[in-house]
């Protein structure tokens, strides 16, 4: 197990380098990073040259990348468009997005798994058909539509929630945005759980559990659910990374100053440092989440052993 973890951690190094290089190149293709600094007008050539020299933009690209990576390893992710350190931005943005992701994942687990179990146990009944239909609707409607609709109804029309989240982004304010962020994954979790439950319900070991005279709730939770949740947990685990990076739309709608918001600003203003820095951290989050899922997998299913 230990050796497996070490191997996986070592594998992260090339992935990390490759990912950052790709992002670095892509952001460079986006356009001139100086152009955004002077607002609407174009910068005068003297200022441009001075800025290019200051940021090292007059050097070749590979040298820029090496300098950048060198700085990253000393904990310096560069400066954002407003002169703030990117690390400072991260320190304010990541906690917000992590809170939002936690809310979203809780929704996936609580609502998604519950609906999945209920429908999986009653396949073909009216509950099953209506939930299935609902998940189909949620999956096919884009997040910005559900988000804006909920914001309009709950926030503007009925005034149940504040339509825009305050800068501290407390957990209570993040419930509706979290639900919006979770919605599509939630529908997938429901379907995945449903299929898995319905399939395992007919398995021999569930029949054995019934033949042992176990109460129904024990058969379901201890025998059926434990086996059925293995694929679901894999999905949710990999989804954590996607949720953190994919919150751009939700964070825009509800004005949440998280990772998505900062990334969006960074892209708008051609700020290489912000974009590369944030995406690099997201890549790391994704890799770590995947590793944790794989390790959890071995805990849940003893047939899987890593060496």
């Amino acid at each position: 197990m230990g050796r497996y973890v070490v191997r996986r951690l070592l594998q992260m190094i090339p992935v990390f380098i490759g990912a950052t290089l790709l992002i670095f190149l892509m952001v460079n293709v986006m356009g001139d990073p100086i152009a955004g600094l002077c607002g609407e007008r174009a910068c005068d050539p003297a200022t441009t040259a001075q800025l290019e020299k200051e940021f090292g933009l007059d050097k070749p690209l590979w040298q820029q990348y090496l300098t950048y990576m060198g700085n990253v390893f000393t904990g310096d992710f560069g400066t954002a468009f407003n002169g703030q350190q990117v690390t400072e931005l991260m320190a304010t943005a990541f906690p917000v997005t992590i809170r939002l992701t936690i809310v979203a994942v809780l929704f996936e687990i609580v609502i998604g798994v519950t609906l999945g179990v209920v429908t999986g146990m009653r396949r073909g009944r009216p509950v099953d058909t209506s939930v299935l239909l609902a998940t189909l609707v949620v999956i096919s409607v884009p997040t910005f539509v559900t988000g804006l609709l909920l914001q309009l109804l709950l926030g503007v029309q009925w005034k149940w929630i504040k339509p825009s989240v305050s800068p501290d982004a407390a957990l209570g304010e993040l419930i509706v945005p979290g639900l919006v962020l979770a919605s599509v994954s939630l529908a997938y979790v429901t379907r995945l759980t449903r299929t898995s439950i319905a399939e395992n319900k007919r398995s021999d070991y569930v029949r054995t559990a019934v033949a042992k005279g176990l109460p129904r709730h024990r058969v379901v939770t201890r025998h059926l659910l434990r086996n059925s949740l293995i694929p679901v947990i894999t999905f949710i685990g990999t989804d954590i990374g996607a949720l953190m990076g994919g919150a751009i739309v939700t964070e825009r709608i509800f004005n949440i100053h998280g990772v998505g918001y900062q990334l969006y600003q960074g892209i708008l203003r051609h700020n290489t440092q912000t974009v590369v820095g944030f995406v690099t951290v997201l890549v790391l989050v994704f890799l770590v989440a995947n590793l944790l899922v794989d390790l959890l997998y071995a805990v849940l299913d003893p047939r899987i052993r890593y060496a």
Partner: protein
Amino acid sequence: MLLEVRDLHVEFRTRDGVAHAVNGVSYEVDAGQTLAVLGESGSGKSVTAQAVMGILDTPPGRITGGRILFQGQDLLTIREEERRRIRGAGMAMIFQDALSALNPVLSVGDQLGEMFVVHRGMSKRDARARAVELMDRVRIPAAAQRVRDYPHQFSGGMRQRIMIAMALALEPALVIADEPTTALDVTVQAQVMDLLAELRREYRMGLILITHDLGVVADVADRIAVMYAGKIVESAPVHDIYKAPAHPYTRGLLDSIPRLDQKGRELYAIKGLPPNLTHIPPGCSFHPRCPMARDVCRTDVPPLYEAGEARGSACHFWRECLHDH
């Protein structure tokens, strides 16, 4: 009487129509007695057992008639909660394929101990100790260490021993073993069968042994019930059947066992296929495959004739069959 099944009917609703899996089966098992239920796949032997255990998949299955009396109590009329308490404690089942019948993600100790936790209200710690005792009892080496292992870490024979241990955990009055050795290597089959027979004697349990293997039955069973198309076609003490079968189907089964003194000769096989349960032939359901079939067999359903002491045969010509041998 420990268990009496009376005129049991079970059907399954399938896309192709209603499959009549069990059509008026009656049998009984006394304490300490072994009844072997014999038949091809689809003969209804497992479905009957599932109905007795109360683990029939409903739907699509449905019990449409009959009674199942366990220690005098009709299991089909009592509440599900009472029924649940009987399962595992009063009667238990050993399944064919222990690898799929045991939960892959729980240790065998957890699965064995669960019987004591649920039915006897024991603490997990005590239940674990009982699990080790049970594993010792079915002769699993190093039980104390292996109690934490998972089903896939055991060999096929050892897994089936764990199944047996689980069924016998609460010393039930009745054990149903559904093809307990079919999934095992031939070398292990005898060991497992001997163990089962020994424990049955020791605990004085009634045993229903479901099998399609006549060879397994001879040594351990007291009585044999032969099933065909959801009916019992012959029921007799074990030695009577081996001496002279009173039903052409039983005879076909006996003749299709390979024998040393007939080495080199072609092995007998019952011609044709088992009937489609959605369209069981009228009259005697065995008539399309029967070498003795006559006109009456195509129209009249044979009752279970009394064909000797404690012996029944559902063949119009049981006398001929008996004397022919």
